[in-house]
């Protein structure tokens, strides 16, 4: 038996700022030498993994006589880290730095570092190019806004003058709504410019957060009072000007945030409101009936027989609404002894007895169909498996790559649509947008309309649209069979996020994954 052996000398030398993917070598430790960059010396270091697992990043001032040192600031990732990221902030020392990354051999990781600073000193006059670098994936970020200010110094050793506003790259909130879905891991600020006096409504979904708008001030007056935090749904009444919006999370996670000027609120939820109005009319009619009953002040009786159990409900001024319920399936017979008409509302909830793989398709505003394309060798056509009947069995082998194709037909223009495609438990989604994604993660088909956001979760892939017009849309992504066994593949479902009555589902299916021989 031969035994591998590796030998190397010196650490890898990197630039003053970078973001790059590496693969952990067989030593299980990688060392990087970051040269001294003077005023722009990196002070922010970030280690990212595509999947959570044990990893550590350590940053120390480089000592030529002790390049294998194990001192310095460190941060770790473990199997439960969400997101799988370790960051080190504010490492202010000067000189070259040694970055040591430790993790399982053969696994990919992304190392990013740069000088994170709110203030830069310029001692030579002239033109400068200012740009910003962002940590992590841009699609997980809220987007950067910035206000540029200047403080002049009186001579080389003199005092700094007052702070002057120079320029800004901020969120302009006029009459159009603003919507972002992003990772809220810490308190964040966003600069917002309002061209006129307006009302802004902040609406969120996902993790719980609170909000505060403050006018942008280079220095606060002595009697300045910080406005109180507000919850989602609050309408901020704001004058024209530049504001700082602070978002404070109660828990870390994904936040879906909308800032809605008044016009856009009406426009975007028009369909929802029209339904709400219809429901309101029905409620008002019901209220009229109840008021008339109050006037009569007479108790009405209703006999309710649920199976062999019978009871008489009394409805009157004291008990305008009477409820009864049962957990068992039974025939219900109502016998009214009332002199006046009564209104009865029956609500039934249940879980289907059949497996999810046997679920039939459904269409109430959307029609959803699904097919799987098992990938074969390069330049070979894929095996197409159309799911036309509930319970169709799909046979795969561990390692098979499958392209999911979902077709959604919408009969009307809709706002806020979610198309969720759950996976059988033995399959894992392949996210082509990850820097570490293999070539086979990219589907051959193109998504018809670019989604506002796509969530590649372990158990499902969900496409979100702020607006989805009438028509037929195709969705593609790939999965890999990873665990042998028999699994249920639930229905793919399209629905309006704020009106569950408009929905459509494909059929359920069964997925059999066999072990590789």
């Amino acid at each position, binding site marked *: 038996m031969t035994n591998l052996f590796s030998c190397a*000398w010196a650490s890898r030398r990197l630039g003053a700022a970078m973001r790059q993917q590496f693969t952990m070598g067989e*030593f299980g430790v990688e060392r990087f030498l970051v040269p001294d960059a003077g005023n722009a010396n990196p002070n922010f270091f970030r280690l990212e993994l595509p999947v959570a697992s044990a990893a550590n990043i350590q940053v120390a001032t480089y000592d030529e006589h002790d390049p294998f040192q194990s001192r310095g600031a460190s941060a770790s990732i473990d199997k439960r880290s969400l997101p799988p990221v370790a960051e080190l902030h504010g490492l202010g020392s000067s000189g070259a730095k040694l970055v040591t990354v430790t993790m399982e051999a053969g696994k990919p990781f992304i190392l990013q570092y740069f000088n994170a600073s709110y203030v830069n000193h310029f001692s030579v006059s002239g033109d400068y190019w200012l740009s910003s670098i962002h940590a992590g994936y841009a699609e997980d970020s809220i987007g950067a806004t910035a206000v540029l200010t200047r403080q002049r110094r009186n001579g080389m050793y003199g005092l700094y003058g007052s702070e002057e506003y120079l320029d800004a790259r901020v969120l302009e909130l006029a009459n159009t709504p603003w919507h972002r879905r992003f990772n809220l891991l810490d308190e964040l600020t966003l600069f917002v410019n309002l061209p006129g006096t307006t009302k802004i409504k902040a609406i969120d979904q996902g993790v719980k957060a609170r909000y505060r708008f403050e006018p942008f001030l280079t220095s606060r007056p002595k009697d300045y009072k910080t406005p109180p935090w507000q919850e989602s749904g609050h309408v901020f009444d704001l004058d024209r000007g530049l504001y700082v919006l602070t978002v404070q999370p109660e828990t870390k996670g994904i936040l879906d945030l909308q800032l809605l000027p008044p016009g856009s609120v009406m426009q975007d939820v028009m369909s929802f409101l029209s339904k709400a109005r219809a429901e309101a009319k029905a409620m008002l009619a019901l209220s009229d009936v109840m008021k008339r009953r109050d006037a009569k002040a007479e108790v009405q009786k209703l006999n309710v027989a649920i199976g062999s159990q019978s009871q008489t409900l009394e409805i009157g001024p004291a008990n305008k609404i009477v409820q009864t319920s049962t957990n068992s399936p039974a025939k219900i017979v109502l016998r009214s002894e009332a002199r006046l008409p009564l209104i009865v509302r029956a609500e039934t909830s249940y879980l289907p007895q059949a497996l999810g793989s046997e679920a039939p398709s459904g269409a109430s505003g959307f029609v959803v169909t699904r097919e799987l394309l098992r990938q074969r060798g390069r330049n070979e056509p894929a095996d197409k498996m159309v799911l036309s009947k509930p319970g169709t069995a799909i046979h795969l082998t561990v390692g098979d790559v499958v392209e999911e194709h979902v077709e959604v037909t919408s009969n009307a223009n809709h706002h806020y649509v979610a198309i969720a495609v759950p996976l059988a438990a033995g399959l894992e989604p392949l996210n082509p947008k990850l820097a570490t994604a293999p070539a086979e993660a990219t589907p051959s088909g193109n998504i018809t309309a670019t989604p506002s956001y796509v969530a590649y979760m372990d158990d499902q892939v969900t496409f979100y649209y702020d607006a989805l017009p009438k028509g037929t849309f195709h969705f593609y992504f790939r999965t890999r069979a990873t665990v042998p066994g028999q699994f249920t593949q639930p229905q793919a479902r399209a629905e309006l996020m704020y009106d569950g009555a408009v929905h459509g589902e494909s059929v359920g299916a069964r997925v059999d994954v066999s072990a590789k021989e």
Partner: protein
Amino acid sequence: MAGAGSIVGEPGKQDGRLDLFLDRGEYKILTYASAKGSGQAKLSVHAFRWLQDRPPLLVEQRLERATLDDFEQRSYWLEVKEKHTVAIEAAGRHLSDLRLWRDGTWLVNVDPQLVISQARADHPLQIARFTAQLEPGLYLVTAYGGQS
């Protein structure tokens, strides 16, 4: 004359094995039985086998990959053009020692730090690393195989 070396092995539990750099001369090997021990003891001497006739040059920051088994040794030339500190790290399942030889003949007084890496849970690796401040010249880095 270096005097008596250390005693290795434990009767009934572990064979004794010594991996030594020996200069030209005569050496005496003493074997000890346990208090109640009797029978035959087996003694063998192995020379480490050179794996290359011409060791390659070790290039800064470039990882070299090869094989190394028990009773084998693999070397790389290291050229130091000006006085500075070098850091060398090697890993292997059967790696037991890593040494530096000035001009390939004089052993430099640097002891490697030996650690076990769990970079792959099912394949523990022996890692040997050292740091040395070296004068300009040619050095031979030699890795020695041992029991895994």
